[in-house]
């Protein structure tokens, strides 16, 4: 992204994670070096001692009528609630704006898998009689973004992406383009992931509970991206100004340094670096910054496929006015993202 067409700013953000509701509880744990990870219930962990970043505090009924909550899968509940928080935080009054100019782009990890497993379990156990039609619509990955758009009346561009540990960054890139092109004035961009016991069993079968899926986290983070003109018009504080997004799909053997340079550039003048996905496990990326300038939320709330927006929001909250920061995200088999921004007004 080179913002030659329309400048993009961030006017709000929020999250629901194992740490609690909003970014502040996560930031406090991060600053204390504490963690919100808890033990996976023994019955879900095949008897093993595992940890996860489960958002146990989340109660859908705190955010929506119980009847509505019953129609949504867990990912949709969390995403819809987080979208509402982000909209409020950014001071957006959808009813007094053109809803066709407000869109949503979400990265999704395992969203929809819980409903898929429940629907199939009914079918495998009881045949056609065991099928629950109500479960089927929310088996799709885009259920979270679509349910959030329905609840909040967002009629602009609507997209969901899944791309390994960079799912949220993938959505954010697309959301920025929609604003640059003038397809939207405001885009909610973020990531959603959920945890359920069957996923843990799958991780164990694949052996991933000892590697990248150890301490898996769930939750949702949403960034409110907005054209600078729109933010000016609304007269709202600017939390950050995006300057550049870069991405590389693969870094094949022998081409890693060239790929890294394409991803990060020279990193001149960067005060803070945040790491998402598996970027904190890559010495070629972490080594670019002194330890006291780096932050990673994985030890606090767990690692997940769509954690990027939560990590980015936490970094923005930690970045002072006009400080330059970089968010780096990676997946073991690619892709890789870097997002540069300047800090703005604190929330």
């Amino acid at each position, binding site marked *: 992204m080179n913002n030659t067409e329309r400048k993009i700013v961030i006017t709000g953000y929020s999250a629901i994670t194992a740490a609690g509701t909003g970014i502040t509880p996560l930031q406090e744990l991060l600053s204390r070096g504490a963690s919100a990870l808890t033990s996976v219930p023994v019955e879900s962990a095949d008897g093993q001692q595992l940890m996860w970043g489960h958002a146990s505090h989340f109660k859908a009924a705190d955010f929506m009528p119980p009847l509505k909550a019953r129609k949504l899968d867990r990912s949709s509940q969390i995403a819809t609630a987080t979208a509402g928080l982000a909209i409020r935080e950014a001071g957006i009054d959808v009813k007094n704006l053109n809803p066709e100019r407000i869109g949503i782009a979400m990265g999704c990890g395992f969203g929809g898998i819980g409903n898929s497993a429940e629907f199939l379990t009914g079918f495998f156990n009881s045949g056609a009689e065991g099928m629950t039609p109500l479960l089927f619509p929310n*088996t799709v990955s*885009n259920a979270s973004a679509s349910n959030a758009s329905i609840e909040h009346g967002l009629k602009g561009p609507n997209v969901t992406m899944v791309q390994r540990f960079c799912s949220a960054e993938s959505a954010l890139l697309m959301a920025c383009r929609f604003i640059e092109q003038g397809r939207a004035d405001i885009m909610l961009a973020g990531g959603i992931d959920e945890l359920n016991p069957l996923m843990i069993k799958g991780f164990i079968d694949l052996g991933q509970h000892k590697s990248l899926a150890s301490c898996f986290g769930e939750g949702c983070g949403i960034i409110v991206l907005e054209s600078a003109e729109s933010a000016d018009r609304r007269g709202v504080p600017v939390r950050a100004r995006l300057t550049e997004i870069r991405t590389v799909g693969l870094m094949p053997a022998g081409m890693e340094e060239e790929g890294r340079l394409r991803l990060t550039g020279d990193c001149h003048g960067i005060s803070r670096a945040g790491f998402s996905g598996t970027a904190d496990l890559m010495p070629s990326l972490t080594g670019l910054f002194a330890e006291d300038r780096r932050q990673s939320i994985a030890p606090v709330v767990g690692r997940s496929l769509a954690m990027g927006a939560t990590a980015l929001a936490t970094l923005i909250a930690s970045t002072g006015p006009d400080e330059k920061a970089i968010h780096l995200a990676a997946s073991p088999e690619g892709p890789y993202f870097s997002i540069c921004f300047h800090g703005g007004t604190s929330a």
Partner: protein
Amino acid sequence: MTIKRVAITGIGVFCGAGKGIKAFNQALQEGVSGIGTIDLIDTTPFTTSIGAQVKAYDPSCYFSPHELRRLSRADQFGLIAADEALQDSGVRDHYAPWDLGVSMGAGAAGMFQSEFWLKARLEGGQASPALLRGLLPDRTTTEIAQRFKLCGYQGSITTACSSSATAIGWGADLIATGRQKAVLAGGSDTLSVLTYAGFNSLKVVDVNPCSPFSLGRNGISLGEGAACLVLENEETAQRRGAKIHGYVLGYALAGEAFHMTAPEPTGTTAARVMAAAIKTAGIAPEEVGWVNAHGTGTPLNDVVESNAMKTVFGERVSQVPLVSTKAMTGHCLGAAGAIEALATLLSLEQGFIPQTLNFRGRDPECDLDYCHGGRRDSDCRIALSNSFAFGGNITTLVLGK
């Protein structure tokens, strides 16, 4: 707002209606449907037993045993279609790996294999964990990127039935912005117990081959497959002497914000998206020759789409055929948009409008020209391709020759 002309320089397909461009094109020209009895999954619990399955498929003809241990059926189809498209374009010989991206749409992805793992678990048995490797819909994209060394952008759109249409539009954006010099864009999806049982549970699957826009239509026929397009900047494609099949002239997308499964009944958002796509292409509605419909064959969808056409084209609507190729390909869900974009492109390229198959009678609520009588010659240069999805996700592509 306009996007630069993005050329399509490579095409590939592998689906129930045709394994490869030659077979698919023949089916399209002759109006031959790929819908028939399926044997990939056990259909005895359901009232329906048909679909557009990829038949007579021997994976070992395409992949080694080692590769097959980790590739889902969706990955396999995607790789086969990608290979055909990349060979057709020859694009890999002309650009650095960093300049080549991949943008795929996906749906149920590797669910078909993963279902065996779940069933075994429920029965107290053991199943190979490798069955889970393709569960997430991004796997096909990564497999394609790795196999063909496409080191640039790597992304997967997952908006159910509009996924791969959006993936093509987004791929065109990546070219138009100069982020990539070439992008492989498309989609791959397969039949699975989840989708077959799911749509049956909603009672939207026709017991007979689907008959879009016909009287007495009673729902969809499911299908499977993959289609890929290679997208490039027109100028650089011409400079390297590439064969240009056609162009992605523009696209638009939006969420209806109405209901997870039911379309907004007036078709207002569908019309808005079609009009916005026409605008991004920098053309007038009068330049659109025909529209490849989402056209699922469900009673409500076909009426809504017909109504949206009237809003967009006004008095001229009777001169703009609305054609559904789903009666030929089945509804390929995450791959539907790409397969239909390809059908649109081939038809434009060869100067005809394809037939909407399986006509059962004229529905007074579907009162447009649907090409039910047979394919017809056409010299039009531009057509739209519509894709609607669960969640109200709507995408329209503008394709030209």
